[in-house]
């Protein structure tokens, strides 16, 4: 037996960490402080002591490199072996990949945006501790973006819809939902960015947004996505901590910060929640083997953990649960169905395919949504199924009207009446602007001069900025290739999948 070696004498973690990070503050003597840190005053947030910032992770650079290199070694080993063994053939079904198409088109670019803008915080925040935390997050987000590109690279070789994700994020209608959200956050000041992305997005909603993707991947045979997802989530816990630390720090610094932060929480909860509607549709409809319904995930990750756990904690500072949260709760039985109906209707113009839920899938939905599905949504799908049995496929003709704020087509219903479309309007400089909900209208009315700038994809098509007036011209400008879009059944992906699996005797392992 070897004896355990006594631990080498060293500075306690906290003290050592303080010397290696906090001690590297920069107090200017030769240039004006306002010139060095020009953006920390215009939002009205007051900071009296930047050293009040706590970072429980206390990660030093050498440890960062060591852990991250180890994580990536594990991850790329999975990617390589999956590619070499043609692991894509073992997915639950090729239609599963629609969820991953949405992911690389909609989420991967957000990782990149976060990477670039946390670099902004790493430059312009005044305290060395939050600057370092932001720098780590900036580098992490680059990791997430790049590992996602590499994970999905293998699927891109065999399936449609993945090939032009970056261009699509800049151009395609449903991707302006996530893009406009991040553009909104990045164009705000540094503190609003912290509250929007670090707190509302990373802490409040990240579990709801990402963990279901990863569990879905695991359940549907997608080991690479599960691996990068959980690997990224381990960084995400640091980012969540940054978000939670940021809000507590800002609230503790000055009483006057509280109403400003509350308004940002109100805005960004709704903004991020509205974007998560796309995830809701994915979870309930795009996974051949569904894991957990949107409603259950919402209850578990948001209602229990956030409303039940976090907000009572924040009450201490005078913070209340986000405005309009009751509308989100009221529509949890409806959100995913309404969103997938939109995607199903307009997938002729999307870089993924959709399909009417199978009988088995429909039975699962019915079980998950006893209060809404059979009455309101099943009849719609039954109608589609009948049309399709007769050789047809219904797509919506024309272009939808988009919400001026969240940019989702206006198809959500009133919180208290799931049969009436919710429709709000605001006047600004003599023009009328349309929003989809109380939450989005409230956001618009607070900053109309910002939201009138929105690059609304449908307006842009009408204005002739998207390749031409006809659908084929627009699709070409979007970078959508033949067969990326429309109905799944009969699509190139579905036909290849059938061919690759035809005549192959299935062996139980």
């Amino acid at each position, binding site marked *: 037996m070897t004896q355990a070696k006594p631990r080498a004498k*060293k*500075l306690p973690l906290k003290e050592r960490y303080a*010397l*290696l990070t906090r*001690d*590297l503050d*920069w*107090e*200017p003597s*030769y*240039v004006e402080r306002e*010139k*060095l840190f020009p953006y920390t005053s215009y939002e009205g947030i007051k900071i009296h002591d930047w050293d009040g910032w706590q970072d429980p992770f206390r990660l030093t*650079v*050498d440890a960062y*490199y*060591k852990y*991250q*290199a180890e994580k*990536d070694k594990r991850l790329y080993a999975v990617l390589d072996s999956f590619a070499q063994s043609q692991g894509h053939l*073992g997915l639950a079904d090729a239609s599963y990949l629609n969820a991953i198409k949405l992911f690389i088109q909609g989420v991967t670019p957000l990782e*990149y945006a976060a*990477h*670039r803008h946390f*670099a902004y915080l*790493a430059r312009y925040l005044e305290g*060395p501790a939050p600057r*370092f935390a932001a720098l780590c997050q*900036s*580098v992490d987000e680059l*990791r997430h*973006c*790049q*590992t996602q*590109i*590499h994970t999905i690279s293998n699927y*891109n*070789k*065999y399936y449609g819809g993945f*090939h*032009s994700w*970056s*261009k699509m*994020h800049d*151009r395609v209608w449903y991707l302006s939902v996530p*893009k406009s959200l991040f*553009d*909104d956050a*990045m*164009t705000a000041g540094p503190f609003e960015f912290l509250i929007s992305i670090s707190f509302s997005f990373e802490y409040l909603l990240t579990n709801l947004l990402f963990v279901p993707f990863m569990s879905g991947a695991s359940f549907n045979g997608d080991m690479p996505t599960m691996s990068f997802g959980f690997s990224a989530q381990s960084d995400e816990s640091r980012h969540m901590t940054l978000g939670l630390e940021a809000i507590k720090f800002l609230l503790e610094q000055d009483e006057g910060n509280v109403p400003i932060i509350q308004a940002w929480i109100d805005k960004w909860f709704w903004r991020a929640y509205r974007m998560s509607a796309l995830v809701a549709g994915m979870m309930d409809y795009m996974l051949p083997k569904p894991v957990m319904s949107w409603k259950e995930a919402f209850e578990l990750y948001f209602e229990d953990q956030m409303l039940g756990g976090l907000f009572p904690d924040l009450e201490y500072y005078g913070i209340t649960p986000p405005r309009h949260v009751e509308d989100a709760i009221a529509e949890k039985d409806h959100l995913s169905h309404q969103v997938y109906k939109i995607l199903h209707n307009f997938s002729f113009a999307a870089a993924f395919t959709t399909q009417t839920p199978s009988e088995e899938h429909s039975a699962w939905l019915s079980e998950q949504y006893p209060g809404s599905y059979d009455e309101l949504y099943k009849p719609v799908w039954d109608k589609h199924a009948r049309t399709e049995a007769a050789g047809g496929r219904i797509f919506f003709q024309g272009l939808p009207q988009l919400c001026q704020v969240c940019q989702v087509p206006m198809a959500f219903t009133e919180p208290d009446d799931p049969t009436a479309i919710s429709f709000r309007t605001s006047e600004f400089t003599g023009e009328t602007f349309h929003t989809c909900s109380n939450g989005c209208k409230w956001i618009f009315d607070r900053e109309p001069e*910002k939201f009138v*700038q929105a*690059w609304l994809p449908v307006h842009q098509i009408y204005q002739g900025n998207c390749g031409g007036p006809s659908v084929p011209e627009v699709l070409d400008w979007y970078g959508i290739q033949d067969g990326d879009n429309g109905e799944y059944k009969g699509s190139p992906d579905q036909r*290849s999948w059938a061919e*690759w*699996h035809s005549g192959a*005797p*299935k*062996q*139980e392992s």
Partner: protein
Amino acid sequence: MQYELRYQVIEAKRQSYQNVIDRFGDQPATRYQEATLDVEPRENFHYRPTWAQDRELYDPRYSALRLTDPYSYADPRGFYYTPYVTNRAALHDEFGKTLTYLEDRELLVTLPEAWRSVLGSVVIPLRHYESGCQLVSVTGARFAHGTSLAQCCTFAAFDRIGNAQMLSRVGIAVAGGVGDTLTTAKQEWLDGAHLQPLRRLVEEIMVVDDWAEGLLAIDHVDSLLFPAMYAGLDEKALLGGAGAYSLVAQYLTTWFADQRRWIDALVSAWRGDPEHGPSNTAHLDRIAATWGPRAEEAVGALTAVVAGRLDGVAA
């Protein structure tokens, strides 16, 4: 479940993402290419930055130095995230092992007095210089136009914190495991007359609007400072009983050689750009003329002190 057909190779429909195919044809691409090319958003930004009303979120106008196509530049090291952290994990692991060796044998605590003084009042204070360099590099991480450039700046920014922490750990080791040397070194940084030209210079560089000018101004300092303070003291250290310093300084020399590779390649790309080459060259010459002499002055103040203290020993 197993499928028989898994034993047959299925032909790929495309070898890479469309933007890579558009550039190089449909052939297998490297992970560097897929992780880098055309990743930065290009168009249809929704709102104007409240902190820069006359710019877009991504905009070539954040610098006077331009590339017609930012992806004509490629990092000669081929760094995307994974090779970057893997490379640096090895660097810091080796550094850590060397430092532990030196600590276990108390080789830094027992450095000759003149060397202790050089470390305490010149070398260790440079950790603050490194943290200033982080602020300059990270500006490029946000504002450089094109992922190919921005990711190099990101890695450089993280590197500078790494350098600062290496120097800090040497400082802790020199003091025998406590923070005393770091405290006095910080005082030197703030008050020492020999360090003020450098501190003033870094502050002035930090407030330069053009991220690339800032990066290059710092590079003018680095190009004098690294050879003078690390590799340049090697022989003296080895002959003067301060081999321990040579052992730790080598890691900063290794880092600087790596830093040179991407910056030199970027400067060549700017000069050789088919459209912006002449204007870039004029800017680069102006930057050298503005900051070069300042860098010489700042680094000169340090080398004078080092020479004074070490030559005193030799005499």
